[in-house]
């Protein structure tokens, strides 16, 4: 945690809502200036990432599509749409938009920053690393070092990620808790995937302390708590999320933990809820939800064949160690003849807690 005082997480979230409300419907219209429309897209994407609200992501994408339609000679519009497409794992489309933005005169460092994010999503860590390292070398700031820390976290280099995280936080000059919470969250997820549950608990708790309503951090913390044998704590964390969120991940996790706790009827109800929602989302955004849906069907969802189909799709979209591992697990579960093909020697070790 940072030592300097930062804005209370409840105030920060309230002010994020106030920014969206304050921009009003005008900012979504064609007559609004591009900067303001981009700002609104950014705010919806940010709120979506904090509250785990898929509707916000969808709205960001819708606004970005409209912006490109209205301002198809403006680099900022294509940059905004690239970011929105990235939210839904439409990585190839995002790269195309970045190319257009570059042709329209977008600054190389901005385009490369986004390109690195796409490469990271695709599992092309070497290419992402080249860009992130160069940015951090030229301007070692909270943002550049934090981005590098997150890349190392995702690629599984815990030691480097933790070191860069500390360096990044040391340079933080702002008062918003949101960027700090996101960093802690990424580290928490990394530790969870490595099976270091105590450290994952520490970082995810820090993220929630920064921003109490940070839904993905609460959700992952619940998973860690469950793995640590604190099923009731996990259920208490997940229940409100599963009830209010439009992301089926929370309902799916809740169903899994309730089943292990022997609460079969409750588990069945939440499983059904998650299953229906995953089907809806897969129909609308197959690339974005293939991995989580595959995990769901592989586990509490109880449909390994469906899991394998989705894991294959996910692996086609991005060849990350995690995608490979998921495909391997799905192929084993279905006793697929392809299971040996999907062995992933370089994959991140999969803990029981990791999804």
């Amino acid at each position, binding site marked *: 945690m940072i030592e300097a005082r930062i804005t209370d997480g409840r105030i920060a979230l309230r002010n994020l809502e*106030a920014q969206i409300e304050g*921009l009003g419907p005008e900012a979504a219209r064609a007559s609004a200036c591009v900067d303001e429309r981009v700002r609104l897209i950014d705010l919806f994407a940010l709120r979506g990432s904090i509250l785990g609200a898929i509707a916000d992501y969808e709205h960001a994408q819708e606004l970005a599509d409209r912006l490109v339609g209205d301002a198809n000679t403006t680099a900022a519009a294509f940059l905004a749409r690239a970011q929105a497409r990235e939210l839904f794992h439409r990585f190839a489309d995002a790269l195309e938009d970045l190319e257009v933005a570059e042709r329209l005169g977008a600054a190389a460092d901005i385009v490369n920053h986004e390109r690195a994010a796409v490469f990271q999503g695709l599992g092309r860590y070497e290419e992402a690393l080249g860009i992130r390292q160069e940015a951090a070398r030229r301007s070692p700031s909270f943002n550049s070092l934090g981005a590098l820390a997150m890349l190392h976290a995702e690629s599984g280099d815990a030691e480097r990620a933790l070191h860069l995280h500390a360096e990044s936080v040391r340079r933080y000059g702002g008062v*918003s808790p949101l960027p700090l919470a996101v960093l802690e969250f990424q580290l928490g997820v990394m530790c969870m995937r490595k099976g270091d549950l105590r450290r994952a608990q520490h970082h995810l708790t820090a993220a929630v302390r920064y921003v109490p309503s940070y839904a993905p951090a609460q959700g992952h913390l619940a998973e860690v708590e469950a793995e640590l044998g604190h099923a009731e704590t996990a259920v208490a964390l997940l229940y409100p999320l599963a009830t209010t969120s439009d992301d089926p991940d929370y309902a799916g996790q809740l169903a899994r933990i309730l089943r292990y706790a022997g609460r079969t009827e409750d588990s069945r109800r939440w499983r059904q809820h998650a299953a229906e929602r995953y089907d809806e989302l897969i129909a609308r955004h197959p690339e974005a939800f293939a991995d989580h849906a595959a995990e769901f069907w592989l586990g509490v969802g109880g449909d390994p064949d469906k899991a394998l189909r989705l894991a294959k799709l996910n692996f086609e979209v991005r060849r990350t160690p995690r995608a490979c591992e998921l495909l391997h697990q799905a192929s084993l579960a279905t006793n697929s003849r392809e299971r040996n093909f999907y062995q992933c020697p370089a994959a991140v070790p999969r803990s029981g807690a990791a999804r």
Partner: protein
Amino acid sequence: MSDHFSGPRALADPAADLVDLFAFPVPDNPQRLIVVMDVFGKAGPGAIFSDAVIYRFRFRRARIAATGPGAAFGVDPDEVGFDITFDVPSGDDTAFQRGHCRTPGGETVSFSSNDERGGTGWGVRVFAGQRSEPFFLDVHTILESAETRRLAFKKVGSDTLYGTNVLSIVLELEWAELLGSGPIFAIVCETLRTGPRPLRIERLGRPEIKNVSMSFKTFDQVNRDLEIRDLYNSEDAFALMPDYVGAYRARLNANLSFWDSLDGKTDWPLDEGGNHPLTRLLLADFLVIDTSKPFQETSYFEIERAMLAARPHFSPGGRWLNEDVMDSIFTLYINGGNGPRISDGIDAPIAWSSKVFPYLAPPNPPKVAAR
């Protein structure tokens, strides 16, 4: 909202994003001085102040050190400051936030946000809360002017800020008691991160320095690709770092020359060093107010214009809430007052400020949310 979004860093936390500073004598009582700091442009109804930010007013005694082409202020090294801080709202009623104003003597005046009576004591009266945006301008035509390099203002413009709100802090004070002998003071406001060593986030003095005067990069032949405003924001308004002054000067010289060119004639010839005559005064980026002069509706930059013309000033300077300051600035930059007043086509905000505490009009009703 003359300073809204004045750099990438300001975007990260809207409650620390300074948007305007005003200073004027109380209309019927020149012994009292008003300063207003606005933050959080386009604030939605739920917007509140950060509990991790110090909202600071700084006052220094100033004097006219030189007139004519080398016009300059002298500013005392000693200063007086007022720090306003806020608590995290507690309980169910989150519309009210407790605030505290620390006076130069170390006394604290506490108050509740959005209470129009404000908090009173120790020679000050302080209000904080959501109010109607008093500033008005047409951003589209400013950007179009910069892009096309010709004046794009329309007879009837479109107010970019129509119907929007800001978070305001209004401080009324007995200047002789709290600031010492004047009568001229230099004033800035700042947002700082709270902590053992407060870190400046933003600072603001004159309107539209960082945006209209500094943001355009294309005219600057020295630092064409430099986003200069975060650096500028982080500086002490009363003591710019010599290392960077050249960069600020180059940017202002270039952009002020651009504005001067828009009417097809040169009203501000550059000196032999390539400096625009306004650059030095604008880099003294604080509001200057003469408390010996009575309130006037239109007074921004009048003291400075008098200094350049080597004549006595007649107004208190500073900046009144209802002044059409964009027209004042464009007239100054484009024709130097040697021609008709230049209008951006917006002549009023949605609601005028009053001459009664807390001066700014109540907030506008919420818009239909963006979705």
